[in-house]
């Protein structure tokens, strides 16, 4: 009897479940109404950016308000994603026809005092619900009329700037007042291009004046000129320069700089070897680099990105000890081609408090 009763219930449940599906279909059809209610302020995430030992990018598509799964190699040329996260850095896609750019609305002034210091209590007590109002308050009308207000990420080359280009005559000359300081294996070298021989779209010779730093006095010594003949260049190869020995060397030797070759001349470019870093000292400000504090001089590798979000950091750090990151809930407007999206980063943590997990609000701004 019991079994019959159970079977009856099971059958009834199956029938009802089937009816439920049908009902859903009907409901979906009914809901499929042309009037769409736009809900702003939904929080997406948390999106992991890996662990401390193995960080990874989270690529986000603002149009679909979802993550895009890509390898870093794919992401370098992919145009679907708009904004990406890795550790505390926020990255904008530079591969799109018009690089993605950002404007900071600065609507979070109450998070900072008149000196620009973080107001601890405001940061600590803020939460996504309370800050929703600030987010929804940003509308299409807040988009700046001046497109120059939008800043993209820019990938720069640290050793660029060693020549002058006259756009009228198309002449290229050495910028002998532009100095570069290279750090390699705790050795510091300062150089500049003192002469350059132009050959059409390239250069056939360049002379670098190179000064080595004496680390005991922490001052640069006298310049020694290194003349680099590029007329023997073969496309696909490079010319190698070792700053320590102030000479042109071969690829088998230790070297700091390379000049990429074209046929019988070279491109207007100087590259820095991977294990070296450099700064631009275009004002010739540094007579030497203190070894102990070199890390504060901002030495950079050959190619580096200037992140637009870094201009207005989305977080404050270590406000109450404990090395935590607190969002300042400011709203950014991100320009993707002709579209504008507002973005508010709400958290760097998942619900358990694991760092490196982004949550954000992101909605398109449309004219009303």
């Amino acid at each position, binding site marked *: 009897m019991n079994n019959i009763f159970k079977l009856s219930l099971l059958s009834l449940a199956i029938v009802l479940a089937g009816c439920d599906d049908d009902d859903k279909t009907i409901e979906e059809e009914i809901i499929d109404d042309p009037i769409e209610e736009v809900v702003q302020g939904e929080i997406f995430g948390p999106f992991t950016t890996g662990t401390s030992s193995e960080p990874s990018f989270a690529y986000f598509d603002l149009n679909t308000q979802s993550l895009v799964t890509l390898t870093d190699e794919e992401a370098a040329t992919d145009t679907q994603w708009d904004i990406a996260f890795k550790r505390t850095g926020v990255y904008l896609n530079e591969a799109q026809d018009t690089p993605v750019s950002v404007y900071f609305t600065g609507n979070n002034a109450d998070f900072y005092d008149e000196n620009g210091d973080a107001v601890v209590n405001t940061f*600590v007590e803020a939460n996504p619900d309370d800050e929703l109002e600030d987010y929804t308050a940003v509308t299409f009308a807040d988009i700046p009329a001046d497109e120059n207000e939008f800043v993209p990420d820019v990938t720069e080359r640290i050793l660029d700037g060693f020549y002058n280009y006259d756009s009228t005559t198309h002449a290229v000359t050495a910028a002998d007042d532009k100095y570069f300081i290279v750090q390699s294996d705790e050795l510091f070298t300062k150089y500049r291009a003192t002469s350059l021989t132009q050959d059409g779209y390239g250069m056939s010779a360049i002379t670098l004046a190179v000064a080595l730093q004496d680390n005991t006095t922490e001052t640069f010594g006298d310049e020694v000129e290194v003349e680099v003949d590029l007329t023997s260049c073969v496309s696909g190869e490079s010319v190698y320069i070792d700053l320590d020995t102030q000479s042109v060397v071969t690829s088998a030797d230790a070297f700091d700089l390379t000049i990429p070759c074209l046929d019988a001349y070279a491109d207007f470019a100087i590259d820095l070897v991977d294990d070296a870093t450099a700064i631009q000292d275009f004002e010739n400000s540094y007579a030497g680099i203190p070894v102990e504090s070199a890390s504060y001089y901002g030495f950079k590798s050959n190619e580096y990105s200037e992140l637009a979000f870094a201009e207005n950091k989305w977080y404050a750090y270590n406000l109450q000890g404990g090395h*935590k990151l607190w969002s300042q809930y400011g709203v950014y407007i991100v320009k993707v081609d002709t579209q504008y999206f507002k973005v508010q980063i709400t958290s760097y943590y998942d619900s358990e408090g694991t760092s490196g997990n982004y949550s954000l609000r992101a909605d398109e701004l449309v004219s009303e």
Partner: protein
Amino acid sequence: MIKTCRKSYISSIFLAAIAAPAISMQENNPAETSSNANIEKMVVTGTRTAKLLSDSPVSVEVIEGATIELLSQGTLASVLDFIPGVVITRSAKDGYNIQMQGFESKHVLILIDNLPVISPTGSSVDLDQISANDIAQIEVMKGAASVMYGSAALGGVINIITKKGASGNTSISYQISQYIDRDYEGEAPFSKTVKFNTSADLLGWVHKVNIQKISDAGFDYDISSVSEDAAELDKIFVNYSASKEINNLITQFKYQYFDEYKQRDASVVPGQSGIIFYSSDVTQHQFDLALSDPSLEQNWHTNARYINHQETSGQSNSIRDTSITLTEIDGQKVWQHGNVNPKNSGESGSETVFGWLLHQDQLDQIKPATNSVEINDESRNSIEAYGQHNFIYNNAQYLAGFRAQQDSDFGTHTAFRVSSMLDLGNNNTAIKWRAGLGQAYRVPVLKERFYVFDHSNLGYMVLGNEELTPETATSLNTSVSLRTSIFDHFADVSFEVSAHYSETQDLINTVHNAELSAETGLDISEYSNIDQTTISGFNVSSELTLDKWSWQVNYAYTDSEDDDNQRLQGRPRHQTKMSLNYQFEQPTINAILYAVYQADEAIPSSYDSAVVTDYTIVKFSVSHTLTQQLSLRYSINNLFDEHKDINAVNNNQFDPRPISSRELVFGVRYQF
């Protein structure tokens, strides 16, 4: 120190046996006896042999067992604050650490029965993980002491001497306490401590069991905020020991189980609704085996200790599992020559101590959430030997010692120390001038060498450094003490003036590694031998002892600076401690009132200012024995409720005061 020797347990098997010759000397020294100083204290820490406190060529201070029981029914954290010149600080892990003579906790060696204990943070012992139960006395030796005690004794040694033998009694104690100035919901929470002690003689072995369970309610000054000010905790100590004496050979086995769990909310998860809390779950097993023959003819002992410490602790979003083991075996032999208790001019003797030690410690630490290894099951071994010769004359003693340590990672290290004591007094007044010049070292701990603390997600890392070398110190200590009886032995009076000067080199600290930081784009700090410091100071103390009253006051001045002439942080320049003790026979009352005043602590540069620059903490405790079986205890800790301002951190202000508020304590003890 407070005289409470009437019911002292000092007359235990071991201590009594090794103290016998010294006690006989004390009986013949009228300057050391008075109406109240019935039995003078015996100490073993200064020379590693039992000596009368007044005859120790190295200055030693003592807290007696009865005073310890009066001060605390909990852990050592509430006891050591009583020692002049000692500063107790609360750690970030809600534990308690010690400073002595300007040295931070990792430079103060904490011993239990002459052997080291685990340092859970890698270098500093947590005083809140050492029970104050069943302690015969605590001996404090200030200044460099590596000759006799090895690594880490730069600032001195605190040796906790547990009770030996058995009283044959069984007792149970219950204590209830409450923090007054705290915020709470519902009924006010109480902290509770239960103790059970028993001993018995079975089959020729003396068995002893001590169980202590502590439940602390923690406290929070503002429950509307997420963060709590002190953790709620539960801990239990279970001790079992068995000892037997056969033909002067004393065999003792001890086992201690310790378990502790504490938790407190720390903050909200930024931008989330969850809460980050700090928790610590510790389980520790300690085994001791000791063999000794304290007879004058043999006079040797050997001890073995094994400690296994398992800990899961940290913020809830960054929990780490730590496994620490410590194994140590030591042995010591004492030879005495001539008359070691000379009373007359021309008489002399000497005492030679030789000892050896084998040591191993291991450390393994991982973060389970990410399976990242922070310390990969590293270990360190050492073999050490020491010797000391004590020349003893009727009015002087000279002491010279040497230690050599062969370490698996750091090669050979040595330390020397010479000390002397001149007796400048007469039959009525004892005047002792002591001086000691010694070296000390601290071998880098495994955490400092192998740590990988990877918080790259937050932009920083802390790394160990395998190239570290041991820290070293040379220190000079001297003191002049005077002790006499006044008004026809109506009262004892003592004064002591002491001074200390230490130079340390290669102190280990974390420093920014510019090269690694530039390479990685992170803020990377690395343990390095970098700091050199100079620490100096003086102490002035006096004690007046009457029949039922004793009064003690001490002032300590400590100055410390690094090689950039910057003051070291966390060290008060001025400290005054005062205690007033009252003992009455009918009814049996033992009461103590003591105060600690500290001033002029260096304000860390990261703070804008300080809330206060000086403060006074006053404690009062009284025990009342109603019958032979029943006794009561009342205490008020932090009488004037001096505690940290909870808004100080948010206002970026430094507050040197302790975190805990006024606490009322009531306890009852029943002895069967």
